């Protein structure tokens, strides 16, 4: 009887079943709250042609930047990819397909994917290139764009604490896209800073209930800072 113990002890196990051409939803905003170890592990695996859904594409040599380096990503769905030189190059040469999506729409597409809502209307992007080819509909005299949900074969998220049943708590702005990503994966893997026993997390303060999480792995995190800004003394 395995019950609800979701803990796995190796990245191999954590990423078992990840195959060529799959869609992988990855939590994080910039380098904040990204599943560092899971991403790094994919670089060592023989998988390619991935579609990655993530607000950003990491930076050169860190985060999803690693998988751009190894050319394992075929397509990026993201809202902002400006931090990445390699990305720029692959995008310009046409090696990388890119679907730029407004940040709020991207977040909502993931939420909708996890929530069984195949499409929703938003004013975001109306009258812009983002709305091209999409249905426009008027509600109360205002125009809205129909956006479709996103799901993935895998979702890789980073949490602060997990219990063995996969209940997750995120920390500060390292939460960002992780809760929605967790709901939108067919297999959701959470890389976390700490794993505790069931009952140790306050049931009133759990951000992601364990039902969304298939595997939990304890990671170690570099937590690289993109823009160190300090108060002037």
């Amino acid at each position, binding site marked *: 009887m395995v019950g609800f113990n979701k803990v796995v002890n190796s990245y191999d196990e954590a990423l078992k079943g990840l195959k060529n051409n799959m869609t992988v939803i990855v939590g994080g905003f910039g380098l*904040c709250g990204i599943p560092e170890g899971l991403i790094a592990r994919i670089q060592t695996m023989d998988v390619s042609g991935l579609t990655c859904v993530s607000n950003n594409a990491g930076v050169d040599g860190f985060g999803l930047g690693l998988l751009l380096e190894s050319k394992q990503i075929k397509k990026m769905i993201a*809202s902002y990819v400006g931090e990445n030189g390699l990305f720029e190059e692959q995008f*310009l040469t046409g090696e990388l397909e890119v679907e*730029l999506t407004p940040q709020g*729409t991207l977040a909502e597409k993931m939420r909708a994917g996890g929530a069984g809502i195949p499409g929703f209307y*938003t004013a975001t992007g109306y009258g812009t290139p983002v709305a091209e080819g999409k249905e426009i509909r008027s509600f109360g005299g205002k125009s809205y764009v129909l956006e479709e949900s996103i799901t993935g074969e895998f979702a890789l998220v980073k949490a602060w604490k997990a219990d063995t049943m996969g209940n997750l708590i995120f920390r500060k*702005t390292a939460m960002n896209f992780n809760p929605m990503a967790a709901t939108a994966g067919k297999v959701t893997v959470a890389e976390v800073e700490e794993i505790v026993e069931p009952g140790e997390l306050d049931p009133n303060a759990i951000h992601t209930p364990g039902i969304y999480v298939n595997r939990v792995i304890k990671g170690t995190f570099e*937590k690289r800072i993109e823009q160190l800004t*300090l*108060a002037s003394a």
Partner: protein
Amino acid sequence: MGLRRDQLAMRVAQELKDGYYVNLGIGIPTLVANYVPDDIEVMLQSENGLLGMGEFPSEENVDPDLINAGKQTVTAVMGASFFSSADSFAMIRGGHVDLTVLGAFEVDQNGSIASWMVPGKLVKGMGGAMDLVAGARDIIVTMTHANKKGESKVLKECTLPLTGVGCIKKVVSDLAYMEIHDGKFHLFERAPGISVEEIISKTEGDLIVPEYVPEMKLGSIMR
């Protein structure tokens, strides 16, 4: 000489009201936080999931898990809250943020804004800008009135791909404070030392100029 960056931020800060929830974009808008009048309180929203953004941290207080939408390390004020990106944009899209301040390449007299893409140059992405302009209750654009060649960026119709349609109501440029009503720019204030003629000459869009255009009040006396 039009307004400097800090003066643009000062002028924008005069539009803040007590109890406002405000989202400040990257660049000049971020500086607005430095000029919040002493007699009011505002809460800053950062679209990556923070309501109640504080100042930059001291070296001891740097926390990689606490950044703003510009990926800068920040702090959180008393009464702050953290939430997911979906919840953050629900807040933005749902019109709960009172004011958004952001930069632009171009604005036009119908309130449309272009701020994210220059075709032919690399596209870095729109980030949250499209959601912010579509959702905020009020939007102030800060920008230079004309480009380096002197060509107007205050247009009849934006030429660059849009960020949003018909959403901008207020523009603080280096030369003027304008509002957009009924498909026209309305000149309300001119930057110190800037003539109405210069503003007219650098505004391609229809500009309504009242008989008297006061000079902006800047500096320590805010209102």
